[in-house]
């Protein structure tokens, strides 16, 4: 049951990601690359929507709001997140985008995933863990904001979510896309199988689903929403039984379980969505893109372990939980993305 629930929860998330063409790296990258500050609002709306559900369910007694978040190393999180951001640009998307690529048939996705798993395992459970441990002991600070557990957070998130929704509705009305993918179907089938949902709709659905995932997880004794890096690595940790594991986003996700199925579900959800929308195609990577993608995967492998999370677990989930570590990580993830955009994309542009 736990495996099926995880798989289905991941599949729904994959469906939302695919239908809205959601890419967290792209959103942050294009704030700078295409000068689109509006994307700040999209990201804020996801965090606020998810935060509203998280705190409302927490204070209603439906889920557990942890009384304690572990301390973190400023150096490890800053350096790791910076590397992860650079890697995400080189790989043309973060770990979640990599799962999307695997699901819709892009071969490069599998290559990035394999390289990430090898490097992530090396840095967390292999010989590289000694360096990871060393980096994580420098400049350790507390991750405990007392306000995080106060009912006022429901009001703060509600106000933020309403402001974001109204602003997005106003912006969407003013900037309606004029072109759409040529369609074949009509009605509900068109909306569910073919139509590219406006990013605003995608953002609210993703935020709401990240929030509801706390409730689903809670039924199986897990107190979190989507995490990506550690659950991917759990597929190696479980059969290989390493002596110890250092780093990563959520220690509870190291064993094969609900979260492992969440990430598998994303691939499965994207696969099904791509099939029904007739978008599934095995696509070989273009020449010249492979080396960059491999370097990107290596940087994401180191970055996710040192930064204790990725663009989803820190950037969207931890931030909604009021984790100082995650907000700090999001800052450096964005700096890494913008730095790599400046060096690798704008030069080429």
């Amino acid at each position: 049951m736990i495996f099926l629930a995880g798989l289905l929860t991941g599949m729904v998330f994959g469906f939302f990601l695919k239908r809205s063409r959601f890419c967290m790296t792209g959103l942050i990258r294009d704030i700078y690359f295409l000068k689109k500050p509006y994307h700040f609002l999209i990201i804020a709306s996801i965090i606020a929507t998810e935060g509203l559900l998280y705190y409302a369910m927490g204070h209603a007694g439906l889920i557990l709001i942890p009384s304690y978040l572990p301390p973190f190393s400023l150096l490890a999180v800053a350096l790791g997140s910076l590397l992860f951001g650079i890697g995400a640009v080189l790989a043309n998307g973060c770990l979640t985008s990599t799962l999307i690529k695997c699901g819709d048939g892009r071969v490069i996705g599998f290559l990035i995933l394999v390289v990430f798993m090898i490097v992530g395992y090396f840095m967390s459970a292999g010989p590289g863990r000694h360096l990871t441990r060393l980096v994580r002991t420098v400049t350790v600070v507390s991750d405990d904001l007392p306000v995080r557990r106060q009912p006022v957070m429901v009001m703060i998130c509600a106000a933020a979510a309403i402001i974001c929704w109204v602003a997005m509705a106003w912006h969407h009305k003013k900037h309606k896309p004029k072109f759409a993918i040529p369609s074949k179907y009509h009605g509900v089938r068109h909306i569910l199988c073919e139509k590219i949902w406006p990013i605003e709709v995608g953002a609210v659905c993703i935020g709401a689903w990240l929030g509801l995932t706390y409730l689903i997880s809670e039924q199986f004794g897990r107190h979190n929403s989507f995490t990506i890096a550690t659950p991917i690595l759990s597929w190696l940790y479980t059969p290989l039984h390493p002596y110890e594991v250092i780093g990563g986003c959520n220690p509870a996700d190291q064993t094969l379980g609900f979260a492992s199925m969440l990430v598998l579900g994303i691939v499965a959800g994207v696969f099904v969505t791509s099939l029904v929308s007739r978008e599934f195609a095995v696509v070989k990577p273009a020449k010249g893109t492979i080396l960059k993608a491999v370097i990107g995967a290596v940087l994401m492998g180191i970055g996710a372990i040192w930064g204790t999370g990725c663009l989803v677990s820190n950037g969207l989930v931890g931030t909604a939980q009021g984790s100082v570590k995650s907000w700090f990580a999001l800052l450096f993830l964005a700096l890494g993305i913008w730095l790599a955009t400046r060096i690798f994309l704008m030069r080429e542009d």
Partner: protein
Amino acid sequence: MENIKVDAKGMDCPFPLVKFKKAIDAAEPGQMVEIEFTCPDTTVSIPGFCQDRGIEIVEFERGDGMWTIVARK
């Protein structure tokens, strides 16, 4: 004027857009730029870019696992 053809098959976002942008910048006014791509995200990014820059999309076709956009500068 001949169409400028851009082959972005096998490339992931944002490279099809980068190549398209380069071709548009190099095109004469009124000249067509035709791009073929396989990255699903580009079905949103190129139309969005064209809308922002006031570039007319004259054709948007869907093939077997790929898309073609023809735009007039």
